[in-house]
Structures are given as C-alpha cells and as structure tokens.
C-alpha cells in the first residue's frame, strides 16, 4: 500500500544524454500507472529511477510520502519484473521465489507457505522444482511475476514484461496481470511501447515522448481528447488520420478553428457518404481507395485524400475495391484540431 510521487524528475546520463527531462506524476494508492511511448523515450530510465537502479539527476521520487532519492533498491521495498525476466538460472523456481524472502529473514515455514500460495495463484505448483532453463517463455514470465508477488512489496514495477511472448499469450497475461493487480491492490508502474496494452491496463496512462510527458490521465479521456498530434498518432490503432488544415489543406466548409494547422479524425469516426451529402461543418474528402484490409469483424480502407493517406474503418466486409472513389465524411464533433506546434486547439 503506497503512493508514488515523481516531482520534476530528470536524468542525464554521462555524455550529456538527457533521457528524462522533468517528469511529474502522482500515482494514487493501489492504482496501475502505465508509461507508454516509443522506444528510447526514457520509460525504462524513469522506471529504473523509481526502482533505485539509476541515480536521480534532479527532482524527487517519493514512495508512500517519503523521498527515496538516497535509498538504494534493496531498501525501497519494491519488486520488479524485468523484460528478460532476470530469473536466477542456477536456482529452482522455488528458490527463485524464496530468495527475496530469505534475504529479509522471513521464517522458513512462512516462506514455504507464501511461495506455495503464490505458486497456486499463478498455477506454478508443478514447476517449483524446475530450473528456469527448463521452462517455456510463458512459464518464465509467470515465475518472474510470482517472484514479485510473493514478496508483497509496496510497489510493483514492470518493464515491458510481455514483450517476449507471442500475441495470444500476451493477451492472456495482460488480462491476468490486470486481475492480479486489482485483487492484490498493490500500486504499480508498468512500462510498455504497446498502446493496446497501455489502454487496457492503465488506471493512469502516461504518454511519454523524448523524455517528457505528452499527456497523462484516464486512458479513454486521452483517446477521446489527445493533447497533441503525437498522442493522437500514438494512441489508437490504426492511428488517427491527420491532415494539414487551412490554406490549400483539408477543412470543413464552415466552423474551421482559428490557428489550426492540422485536422484529425479517427478511422472509426469516418463515414462513407454519397456525394454532396454532408453538413457544412463536417469534413468531407474525396478519396480514392488504394488497399482494403478485411480483418473479419471490420475492414480498413487505405485511401488517398487531400494529398495525404487516410484510413477508414467500416464494420464487416467492405464493399469498396482498390481504385474506387469514395466520399469520406467526419462530423464536426468527431474532429480534432491542432496548432502549428502540434498542441490541441479546442
């Protein structure tokens, strides 16, 4: 049970590499915070500073209201799941899980009880006597989770824990992590570059870009109101369609925003309409279909429109064929406007 507070945290690596450029996040007790962003944006660095594995150049990290800048990883009472799992190869699964408890002087019978209870939760009971190299990728992942859970720490930290699993297993584990985190109620920070994972797991979603926070908040709020073109194109798959607005660009017949340089709409917010059949404040584009991607429940039409590429989602099978000409309409309330610096204009 703990809160995690970051105040203007910065990290400069030797050689003047600014990996984190002033990040402030407040994570409430028991919540799951997801840090998402492209590779190299400083997510791992931030997580490792919370863990105590990297020194903090400036700013403060607090756990449970106490500044931990000067406290080493050993004494922060956190647990971490590494991307490569970092299981101790010379120890059996049982000992991998018991190691942290032993180091803290937990009585033997309590260690045994806790390891077995955790193994039961994660369905690892039959693997306790195996060594990590005798496990599949998915099983290793579960052991890494077990090693974190069994300690009952104040905070869980996850660094891309699912990125080495195949797609199906990743989906299963995602649900499982969410349920476990809920039921244990342990404050967690989860790093991923996968926006789907981020959207589905997060209580608090933090979108990072080049060492700074682009936007933080409830995942659906971020989806509905991305604060910048970066967030708009990073969250959601396929990403939001972004077109240059204003002179010579795309714009509705009326109701264009003052100072907007970019106009955007989500693939699912576009409708296929008949020629001339759109309200004046809606964005209407003449598009030519270039490719059709049927996924089953839905299809994506990749089109050329107003000098750009756009994606339109239609449910079920698409009637359109490559080469067809369509009229694509996005209603006024579905439009997103951004200024020249990429910030949202409302």
């Amino acid at each position, binding site marked *: 049970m703990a809160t995690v507070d970051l105040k203007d945290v910065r990290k400069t690596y030797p050689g003047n590499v600014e990996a984190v450029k002033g990040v402030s996040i407040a994570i409430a007790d028991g919540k799951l915070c997801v840090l998402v962003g492209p590779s190299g944006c400083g997510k791992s660095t931030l997580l490792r500073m919370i863990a105590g594995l990297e020194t903090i150049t400036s700013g403060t990290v607090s756990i449970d209201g106490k500044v931990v800048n000067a406290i080493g990883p050993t004494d922060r009472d956190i647990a971490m799941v590494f991307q490569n799992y970092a299981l101790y190869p010379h120890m059996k699964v049982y000992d991998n899980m018991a*190691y942290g408890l032993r180091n803290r002087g937990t009585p033997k019978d309590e260690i045994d009880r806790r390891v077995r209870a955790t193994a039961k939760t994660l369905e690892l009971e039959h693997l306790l006597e195996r060594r990590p190299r005798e496990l599949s990728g998915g099983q290793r992942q579960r052991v890494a989770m077990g090693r974190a859970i069994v300690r009952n720490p104040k905070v869980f930290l996850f660094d891309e824990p699912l990125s080495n699993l195949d797609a199906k297993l990743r989906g299963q584990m995602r649900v499982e992590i969410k349920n476990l985190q809920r039921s244990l109620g342990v404050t967690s920070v989860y790093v991923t570059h996968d926006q789907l994972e981020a959207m589905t797991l997060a209580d608090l979603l933090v979108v990072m870009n080049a060492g700074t926070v682009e936007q933080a908040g409830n995942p659906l709020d971020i989806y509905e109101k991305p604060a910048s073109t970066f967030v708009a194109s990073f969250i959601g798959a396929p990403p939001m369609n972004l077109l240059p607005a204003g002179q010579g660009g795309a714009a509705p017949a009326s109701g264009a925003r003052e100072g907007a340089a970019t106009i955007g709409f989500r693939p699912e917010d576009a409708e296929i309409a008949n020629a001339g059949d759109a309200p004046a404040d809606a964005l209407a584009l003449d598009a030519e279909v270039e490719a059709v991607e049927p996924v089953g429940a839905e299809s994506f039409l990749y089109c050329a429109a107003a000098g750009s590429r756009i994606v339109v989602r239609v449910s079920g099978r698409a009637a359109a064929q490559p080469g067809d000409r369509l009229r694509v309409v996005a209603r006024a309330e579905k439009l997103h406007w951004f200024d020249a610096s990429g910030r949202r204009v409302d």
Partner: protein
Amino acid sequence: MTPRVVFPNKFLPYLLLAPQLAITLVFFYWPASQALYQSVLKEDPFGLRSRFVGLDNFRRVLADPNYLNSVEVTAIFSTATAFFSMAIALLLAVMADKVIRGRGFYRTLMIWPYAVAPAIAGMLWIFLFNPSIGSLAYLLRWVGISWDPLLNGPQAMVMVVSAAAWKQISYNFLFFVAGLQAIPKSLIEAAAIDGARPTKRFWTIVFPLLAPTTFFLLVINTTYAFFDTFGIIHAVTGGGPGKATETLVFKVYSDGALNQLLGDSAAQSVILMIIVIALTAVQFRYVERKVHYG
C-alpha cells in the same frame, strides 16, 4: 549446425593434421612411452647396460620416505598455489569490473605478469624476499617475523607459492573478467531489489554463475602447479631447504638429471602422470556436477 567440410582430396585432411600430430607424437607420446619403458628397467652404475626389473622401481619409489615427503609438499604447494592465484585473481577481477574509467588500461597492466618467464618470476621473488636486500623481507622483519627462507622450510614454501601464484594471477584474472562480463546485469539488479546486499549478491548469484569459469581454472591451475612450476622452484629454492619445497616434478628432475637414477625418475614420472589424469578425472566427475552451465 555447422555444415561438414568436404575435402575433394582424401589425403589433404591428413596432411593438414600432420604437423599437429607430429608435434603431439614427438613431444608427448614419445617421451611418455620412453618414461613408461624406462620405469621398468634398471641401469647398472655405469649406465652401460639396463635390465628388466618389473615393478621394482615403483616399489622402491613408493617406499621411499623422501618420495612421500615430496607428495605432501606437492599437495600443499599445489593447493596453496591454485587457491591463492584464483582467489586473488577473482578479487582483482571483481574490482576491475567496477572500474569504469581507464578500464582497458587497467586490464592491460594486469595481464603483463603472464608474459614473464617462470625463472624470471622466480628471480623477482628472490629479490623481494631476500633476507638481506629484499623489500618484502624488510617489511616482514619490521612486523616482527624472523625471516629466513634459506633455513626455514615453511617460509621457503611461502616464497615459492607466492612466486608461482603471482605468475598465474594474470591468466586467471582474464578469465574471471570475461566470466563476470557474461553475467547479465539484470540478475544483479534483480538480486539487489530482492534485498541482497553486495556481499550476499556475490556469494549467492555471482559466484555460483562463475562456476564454469572457476572449474575450468581449477583444472588449469592444478595442472600448472603440478608441472609448470619447475622453473620457479628451481630458481627460488632448488627444492630446499632440506627437501621442504621439493615437489614431485622437481624430484623427478633431481633424481633423474642430477642423481642419474633413471629408473626411479621414470617410475616417478609415470606416477605423476597417473596422479594428474586421476585428479582431472575426479574434477570433471565430481566438481563439474555442481556447475550449472547457462
């Protein structure tokens, strides 16, 4: 899977192997078979004739108190040399692993002693430990130890062990550095988060994961201490004082080359060969089982 190399010519592979085979034959199998042959012969005092005596040489050697002393000396010398050269090398390697600036330079410095010839290494330690001019001897006297390796057996042993271990430290250091680098950093970090402080991390994570390296070095260092330390002992103590530093290899030399007891010396060589083969077999059979690769 590496594809098999197919030679168009039948004889080419043998031709390519020939130099290696020739060297092994001339420098290993031939002397070894000579030793075996000599070990069952007895020469007359003038070295003119020799006759077959069966296992007599072996019986005499094994009943000789000097030989048994030599076995004990070798056991102490080899264990101490292997232990200290590996322990010190490991300590240095762990410290080198923490060095960030000037890493390469530091490592290069550490490797130099390996290029020093055994006899020269021996001379170096003679100077350092020389009772009248050696700086280490001076230090020892200063802390109140009456230092006289020329008369005191255990002190002579300290001297040869120091020289022999010192010479091997560089080699062990290199392997330990490589071994340490092969341990993923995230394991150490995971252990730190799991509440293990540096010393605990070393003994519970780093040391067990270094086991393959340590095992390999144990075999190499034991063999080194048995065979390759002749030059050092020859230069530093000549086996003395008394027979306090006369190892098996040195005794083979002094009996065979100095005292011309060819049969005895050959029998000793054969025993030595058997000991080393047995030791290596035991190491592989029992120690390696405790080693976890990968």
